[in-house]
C-alpha cells in the first residue's frame, strides 16, 4: 500500500443511532477508517458490536426510522454517499458496490430463477439486454464455479445447496464489476468444508478481479486466512486496527488479546483451560464517556471509567483505542 494513492472508501466520524422505547442506542459511535484499492479489510466483532450496521449505513440500507445517521461522511470516488438521494445511491448499490449477505436463502428471491436474478442488475446498471445479458450471466456463473451453468440457469434458489446459493450471491454481487465488495458474514451459515470452498473462491476472484473487499465476520480464523488488514469493533467503536500479521502477532487492546486467547486451536498444543472474558457486552444506551470495555477489562484503572479513549497510532499502521497506551504515545511523540 503506497500512501499517495487515495483510498477507495473513506469513512469519517460516522455515527448511527437507533431510536428505541428505552432511548437512543448508539450502535455506531464515531467510526473512522479508509479502504485502499485491492485491500481486503476484515471487520471483526461480536454480535451487537455494530459491524453490520456500519456497513449497511454506508449504502443507506438501514430502515429510517428507527435508524438515524447522526453525522459523518463516507466518501467513495470523491462523492459523499451519505448526501446522495435514493436515486443516486441506487445506482451505486449493486453497481460499483456489491453486497453479499449472510444467509443466501433469505437474500435470494425464491420466486425468480437464479438466471433472472443475475440478469437483473445487468439490465438495470449495465443496460445489457436479451442475449448479451444472458451470456454475461452464464459467464459469471462459470466464474463462481457453478458446474454446468447452462443447465442451472433456469433453476430456482431452493434447488441449490447452501454453498451453491452463496456462489450465486457472489455472482450477483460481481455483475457490474464492482470496485468494492461488502461481504457480511458470508460463510457463517455454511459448514466448514463448504466455507473452505467459498474462501478459496474469494481468494481466487480477488486475484483475478482485484476489487477491494470488506469482510465482516465474528470468526477470527477466517479473518486470519483472508484479510490483509483488520478492524476490531466493540460496542459500536473501533478498538484496534492493524495489518493482519501485526494484529495477530502483537494484539494490543486487552479485548483483542482476550478474544484471540479464548479460541481453542485445532492444531498444535491443546489448551488446558480456556481464557474467558468475564461479564458480557454492554448495551449502548448511553453515549460512552468512558471505555466501553472497562467493566470486563483486567487492566482497567480510574481513567477508563471517566474518559472514552481515542483511536491513536501506537505502532506503525497499528491503531489502538486504550488508555494503557496513551502515555506511551505521548512519550514517543
Amino acid at each position, binding site marked *: 500500500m503506497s500512501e499517495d494513492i487515495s483510498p477507495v472508501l473513506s469513512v469519517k466520524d460516522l455515527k448511527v443511532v437507533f431510536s428505541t422505547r428505552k432511548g437512543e442506542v448508539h450502535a455506531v459511535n464515531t467510526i473512522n477508517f479508509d479502504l485502499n484499492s485491492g485491500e481486503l479489510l476484515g471487520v471483526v466483532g461480536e454480535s451487537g458490536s455494530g459491524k453490520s450496521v456500519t456497513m449497511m449505513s454506508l449504502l443507506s440500507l438501514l430502515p429510517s426510522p428507527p435508524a438515524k445517521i447522526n453525522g459523518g461522511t463516507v466518501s467513495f470516488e470523491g462523492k459523499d454517499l451519505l448526501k446522495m438521494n435514493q436515486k443516486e445511491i441506487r445506482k451505486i448499490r449493486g453497481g460499483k458496490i456489491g453486497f453479499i449477505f449472510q444467509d443466501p436463502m433469505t437474500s435470494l428471491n425464491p420466486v425468480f430463477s437464479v438466471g433472472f436474478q443475475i440478469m437483473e442488475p445487468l439490465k438495470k446498471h449495465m443496460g445489457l439486454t436479451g442475449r448479451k445479458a444472458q451470456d454475461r450471466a452464464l459467464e459469471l456463473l462459470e466464474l463462481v464455479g457453478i458446474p454446468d451453468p447452462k443447465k442451472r440457469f433456469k433453476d430456482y434458489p431452493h434447488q441449490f445447496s447452501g454453498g451453491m446459493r452463496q456462489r450465486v450471491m457472489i455472482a450477483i454481487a460481481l455483475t457490474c464489476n464492482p470496485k468494492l465488495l461488502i461481504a457480511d458474514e458470508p460463510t457463517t451459515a455454511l459448514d*466448514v468444508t463448504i466455507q473452505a470452498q467459498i474462501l478459496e473462491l474469494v481468494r481466487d476472484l480477488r486475484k483475478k478481479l482485484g476489487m477491494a473487499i470488506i469482510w465482516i465476520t465474528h470468526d477470527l480464523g477466517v479473518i486470519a486466512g483472508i484479510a490483509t488488514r483488520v478492524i476490531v469493533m466493540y460496542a459500536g467503536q473501533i478498538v484496534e486496527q492493524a495489518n493482519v500479521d501485526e494484529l495477530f502477532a502483537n494484539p494490543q487492546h486487552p479485548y483483542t488479546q482476550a478474544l484471540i486467547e*479464548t479460541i481453542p486451536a485445532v492444531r498444535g498444543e491443546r489448551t488446558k483451560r480456556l481464557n474467558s472474558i468475564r461479564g458480557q457486552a454492554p448495551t449502548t444506551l448511553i453515549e460512552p464517556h468512558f471505555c466501553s470495555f472497562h467493566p470486563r477489562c483486567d487492566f482497567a484503572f480510574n481513567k477508563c471509567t471517566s474518559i472514552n479513549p481515542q483511536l491513536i497510532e501506537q505502532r506503525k499502521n497499528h491503531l489502538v483505542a486504550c488508555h494503557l497506551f496513551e502515555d506511551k504515545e505521548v512519550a514517543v511523540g
Partner: protein
Amino acid sequence: MADPRQEIEPLVEVRDLKVYFPIQAGVLRRKVGEVKAVDKVSLDIMKGETLGLVGESGCGKTTAGRAILRLNDITDGTVRIKGKYIHESSHKELRKIRPTMQMIFQDPQESLNPRMTVSAIISEPLTEHQSMSKKEREERVFDLMDSVGLNRDFASRYPHEFSGGQRQRIGIARALALNPELIVCDEPIAALDVSIQAQVVNLLEDLQEERNLTYLFISHDLGMVRHIATRVAVMYLGQIVEIGKSDSLYSSPLHPYTEALLSAVPEANPEIERTRKAIVLSGDVPSPANPPEGCNFCNRCPKAFAICLEVEPTLTEIEPGRFVSCHLYNG
C-alpha cells in the same frame, strides 16, 4: 484416564442405532422412501468422560443424541443406559429413568418458556419428579443458580431479561436439577458469542469435575470439541466414520473425511493460515434419503478406489480404542 475402556464401564452403550424418517407423498400420504438420519450407529460413552460428536449440518448428530435419550423414536438398534435397555421402554418406564439423563439445547431462547420465571423453569423438573416441600425446592433452586453462576436475586425474572450466555446457564441449571449422570449437550455454545462461549465451556467443565457428569457434546465447532472432549466421534451422512481419543484423532486423522474436515478449519493465526492446505472437498453432502452405493463418502472422497463404490465399509477397531470405517484400513 489412561485407557477408559479397561478401567471404567460404559454408562451408555448404543448398538446399530437407526433412526429413519418416512418420506410421504401424494394425497394418501403413502410412504415413498425414508431419510436415513442415523444409520447403524454404535458407540459407548464411558462414565465421567466427554464424548464429542462432530459433523456437518444434516449428518444426524442431533438426531442421534436425541434418540439416545429416547426423545426421538428409534427405528432399530439398542440403547443401554446404566445397564438398562431403554430402546423399547414404555413412556411410563422411561419417566423413571429420565432424571439420570438430561439435555442442554442449542438455542436457550427457544428452549426456555418465555412465560415462566427462572425459578419456575429450574424447579419444574423437581416438581415433576421429586416430592419436596416448597421451602426445600426454593433452597434447591438457589443452590443450582449458585452453581451455574446466576445471581439469586434474578430468580423471579423472565428469560427475555437475560443475555444469551445467562440463558444458557438457566438451561444448564434446569438440566442439573435432578442430579443426572448423563447430559446430552446439543450445540450448547453455537448461538453464543466467542467471549461467552469460553465462559459456558469452562462452567460445563467445572460442573463435570464437581458432579462426575458424563457428557455427550454435540457440536460442529471442531476446536471447542478438541478442547472439551476425551474421545471424539465423527459423523458423516448418518454414520460414524471414525472414533478415537481426542488427541490422536486430531493429530493423525485416519478417515479421509476426518482429514478433510480438520484441514478445512481456519486457525486464528495468519502464519499457519498462509501455509495451511485445506483439502477442498468437491460437491455437497448427498441426501440421506438417497445415499450413494458402497461407502457413503465415495463420491467426494479424494482417495476412493473401486471397492468403495460397491461395498459399504464397517466400523473396525484398527488400534486399541480407535475405530475407522474405511476400506483403506480394512485390508
